[in-house]
């Protein structure tokens, strides 16, 4: 039976409740919320309350309502206060909408009164005598600094491996990317770094950037006024929920058509059909990994039909053939339209054959994208893509092939246009230039082959979310245990003796692991020092969303326990490194770690982002409220920050840094399954294992590990499967099954899905209890972008449905009136 909250009333915020601006920190959309806080033992009344409405009346649809999941009791300046987190009807991003993620921000706050998020880390901890013992910041940072200083001075900075977030929201934000970036890229020259979701320090969208086109170039409002929404490898209703519900939906209601390229039918396709009518929705369910062939056919057809924007091409794109040759850093050459088309040319018939979709549908898509309207006027098309491309086959060329179409049709920098990634977290990147190079080091492989002596981990959990996870985990654990054993053996020694023991252990193949996180993560089980970080709203945090909308999400509660903002943890590491290096007589090196005398996250913001964007301060952002300002900020006028609604409206493209400001096309020839080992895997296994997200917990699943509402719905990671395939294997709904191949195995719960194709299963990604990465091979592209999406394996039943999975609903996820 579905989980019951058994809550039938909630306190009412009084008129004088404090109000803070909050930007939801879970996903890229960045919905606006108001946080009301007020003292315990007080509340408003039905008629007199902070919302200013008569609560004794049933509120209408879309009316103000505090759901139990939006309520909590939290600490503010040391006192327990009520917290009500209500979606902001005046925020242009969400206009009062919540999602199943953001709508649970309240209950996901740590509270000693309500006993929520008791998994949060409260104290720095050091591995002592076989357990993690709480300690002071001074003690923990001293050990981190002593070991780190020894290694970098004796063996060089390449022995320090760093895993760190690069995003906004959640753990990221301009404050925290700056704090960590300054430490590793300014005070040090770290080369062996990687990002939270990929095994190297690189861009997920090198191609579009090399073509001159920044990947977040439109406004959400563009989807409202476009003629066609063209989506490739994304599922916005689930993963950018209120972008779909509040903006794409309006576009469809205004008559836009909808094209979705995805081997799987998702709830997004169903919802689009509901809104626009089936006749205005085209789902191109291509064979996995064939996107490039489809894009190239569309590009070719559009050019051959003359549906290109020739003025735009002439004025804004490169004209002289090849501009950038294919080389080690460029998996495809770049240049003029003709140059690119020469490599991309694909007939619709050929693409139909490769992609397994009707040729007529490909032609229809081309018409919907680019065919001038009956009155001869230009058709507007807003294009968007995400992980199906980014984590898909041949990342660089797939990305380039999409941008080719948008450039050819002049759909960048114009109202109703745009060619964007949809994004995962919000963005919030402000760091000194890195020293990583291109292609970047494949850091996971370096670690697996015994490289590196220290691992600093910032809010990332590769055990759940990297590729080749089974092997990575095994090696990481083995190497960390060498150091744990050495620490245990020297437990009674002095700090100096401990450090000696650790250094000897890392020289014997061990890995000294420092983990900064808000919870004790799975990779954190390997840590020798754990430093507790706080989250957004326990600190002030600035980020921008998928339309580059920058907001200050305000601190309304205290950091939990002794936890600190990541930027201040980074500062603490730097200060301790300076002290220890000076003690070691390394004055010059020590000087590199000056400049971290930050008391607050605002200090870190002023030291970083503000230096590059002098108009932007906390006060000014606070005044801009939940609507913030769209980056880049170009001035401050009449008490308001002035932003930029869409990029490249002047037709000048600069993301590649070219002086001529001309966009480049990409010679994105299709070359089948690009990553090593994938074709072999496909040939030898029965099922394609698609790696998918679910609206319910994507981006914050680690917070939901003990959430009753969520665990009741999905006690185990779901694996959507065709009912006939299930029958063939003797699998019933809710049975526990295992996916296995030569890379490893992972487990989940069978979810019969009528729309799933035979031989294709879709497993939810990033689950704490079933790491999909275990079965993903180490194959990457030339720039070390992983291909998580293309994995093949076999399936076997492990057990009948457990009591927990037996009562779960296995009905279709598609709305049916």
């Amino acid at each position, binding site marked *: 039976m579905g989980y019951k*909250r*058994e809550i*039938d*009333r*909630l*306190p009412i915020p009084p008129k004088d409740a404090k109000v803070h601006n909050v930007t939801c920190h879970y996903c890229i959309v960045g919905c606006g919320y108001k946080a009301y806080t007020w003292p315990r033992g007080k509340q408003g009344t039905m008629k007199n309350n902070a919302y200013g409405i008569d609560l004794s009346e049933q509120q*209408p*649809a879309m009316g103000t309502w505090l759901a139990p999941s939006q309520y909590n009791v939290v600490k503010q300046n040391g006192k327990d206060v009520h917290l009500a987190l209500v979606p902001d009807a005046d925020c242009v991003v969400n206009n009062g909408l919540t999602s199943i993620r953001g709508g649970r921000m309240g*209950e996901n706050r740590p509270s000693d009164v309500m006993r929520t998020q008791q998994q949060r880390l409260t104290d720095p901890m050091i591995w002592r005598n076989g357990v993690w013992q709480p300690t002071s910041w001074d003690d923990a940072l001293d050990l981190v600094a002593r070991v780190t200083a020894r290694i970098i001075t004796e063996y060089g900075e390449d022995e320090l491996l760093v895993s760190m977030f690069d995003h906004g929201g959640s753990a990221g934000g301009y404050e925290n990317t700056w704090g960590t970036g300054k430490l590793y890229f300014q005070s040090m020259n770290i080369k062996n770094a990687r990002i939270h979701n990929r095994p190297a320090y690189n861009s997920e969208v090198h191609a579009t950037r090399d073509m001159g086109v920044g990947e977040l170039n439109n406004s959400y409002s563009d989807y409202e006024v476009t003629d066609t929404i063209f989506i490739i490898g994304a599922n916005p209703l689930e993963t950018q929920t209120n972008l779909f519900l509040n903006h794409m939906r309006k576009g469809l209601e205004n008559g836009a058509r909808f094209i979705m390229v995805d081997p799987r039918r998702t709830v997004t396709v169903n919802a689009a059909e509901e809104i626009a009518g089936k006749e205005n929705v085209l789902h191109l369910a291509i064979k996995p990994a064939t996107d490039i062939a489809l894009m190239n056919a569309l590009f070719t057809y559009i050019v051959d039909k003359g549906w290109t924007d020739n003025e735009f091409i002439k004025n804004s794109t490169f004209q002289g053939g090849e501009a950038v040759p294919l080389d080690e850093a460029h998996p495809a050459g770049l240049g003029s339209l003709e140059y690119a088309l020469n490599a991309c040319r694909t007939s619709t018939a050929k693409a139909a054959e490769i992609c397994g979709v009707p040729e007529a549908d490909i032609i229809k898509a081309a018409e919907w994208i680019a065919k001038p309207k009956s009155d001869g006027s230009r058709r507007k098309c807003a294009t968007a893509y995400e992980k199906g491309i980014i984590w898909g086959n041949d990342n660089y060329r797939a990305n380039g092939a999409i941008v080719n179409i948008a450039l050819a049709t002049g759909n960048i920098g114009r109202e109703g246009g745009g060619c964007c990634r949809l994004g995962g977290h919000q963005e919030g990147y402000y760091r000194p230039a890195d020293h990583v190079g291109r292609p970047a080091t494949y850091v996971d492989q370096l670690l697996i082959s015994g490289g590196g002596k220290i691992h600093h981990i910032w809010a990332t959990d590769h055990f759940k979310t990297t590729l080749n996870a089974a092997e990575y985990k095994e090696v990481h654990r083995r190497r960390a245990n060498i150091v744990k054993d050495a620490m245990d053996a020297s437990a009674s020694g002095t700090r100096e003796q401990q450090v000696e023991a650790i250094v000897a252990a890392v020289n014997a193949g061990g890995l000294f692991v420092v983990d900064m996180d808000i919870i004790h993560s799975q990779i954190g089980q390997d840590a020798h020092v754990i430093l507790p970080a706080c989250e957004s709203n326990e600190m002030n945090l600035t980020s921008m969303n998928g339309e580059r909308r920058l907001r200050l999400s305000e601190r309304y509660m205290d950091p939990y326990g002794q936890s600190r903002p990541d930027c201040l943890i980074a500062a603490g590491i730097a200060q301790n490194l300076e002290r220890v290096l000076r003690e070691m007589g390394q004055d010059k090196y020590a000087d590199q770690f000056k400049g971290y005398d930050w008391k607050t996250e605002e200090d870190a913001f002023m030291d970083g982002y503000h230096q590059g964007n002098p108009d932007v301060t906390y006060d000014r952002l606070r005044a801009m409220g939940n609507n913030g300002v769209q980056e880049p900020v170009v001035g401050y006028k009449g008490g308001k920050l002035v932003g930029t609604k869409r990029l490249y409206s002047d037709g000048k493209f600069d993301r590649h840094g070219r002086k001529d400001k001309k966009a480049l096309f990409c010679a994105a020839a299709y070359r089948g399954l690009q990553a090593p080992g994938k074709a072999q895997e496909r040939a030898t296994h029965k099922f394609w294992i698609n790696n998918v997200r679910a609206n319910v917990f994507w981006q914050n699943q680690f917070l939901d590990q003990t959430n009753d509402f969520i665990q009741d*719905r999905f006690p185990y990671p779901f694996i959507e499967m065709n009912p006939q395939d299930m029958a063939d294997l003797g699998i019933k709904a809710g049975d526990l099954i295992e996916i296995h191949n030569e890379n490893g195995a992972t487990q989940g719960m069978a979810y019969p899905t009528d729309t799933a194709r035979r031989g294709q299963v879709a497993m939810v990604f990033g689950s704490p209890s079933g790491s999909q990465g275990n079965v993903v091979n180490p194959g990457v592209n030339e720039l070390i972008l992983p291909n998580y999406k293309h994995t093949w394996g076999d399936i076997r039943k492990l057990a009948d449905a457990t009591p927990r999975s037996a009562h779960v609903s296995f009905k279709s996820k598609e709305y049916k009136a």
Partner: protein
Amino acid sequence: MRCKNMVNVGRRQFLRGGAMAAAGAAAATVTSAPAEAGAPVPPAQLEYPSARLANIADLKVNEPLDIEYPDADSPGVLLKLGTAVEGGAGPDGDIVAFSTICPHKGFGMSYNSEDRTLNCPGHFSRFDVEAGGQEVWGHATQNVPQFTLRIDDKGDIYAEGSSDLIFGRPSNVL
């Protein structure tokens, strides 16, 4: 298919008990605490009106009956499922009642008798009436409120409580 049959219930009988709604100064209980963190705080239940919804004889298998509970501003649905479900009332253990105000943003939901779900046109959420109102897919952060039923000797079905807070109110009993 939309709920067609409507059982009229007077509003009056529901109004008693409403006075204490806003007075509950105690913090509400959010029982999402991890199991290891100690026993959840016992829910502070309101006093609910007892409202006659229908008689068992009025119900046909899988034919939804419109109801209102705890008051006339709060529509719901009464169903006889034909097979026993956890939490089902009546001699066959198959009678259930749910709110039809979507717990996401309050749009009115309709009943799909084919796969026995409540579906919301607001933003496409759906709930399984055979699984205690579990959200099959959607945006609501709770399952759909299920009404507590009591059936007397005569077969009269009474609603006497709700498992979850109903959208659009700070207290189920206004």
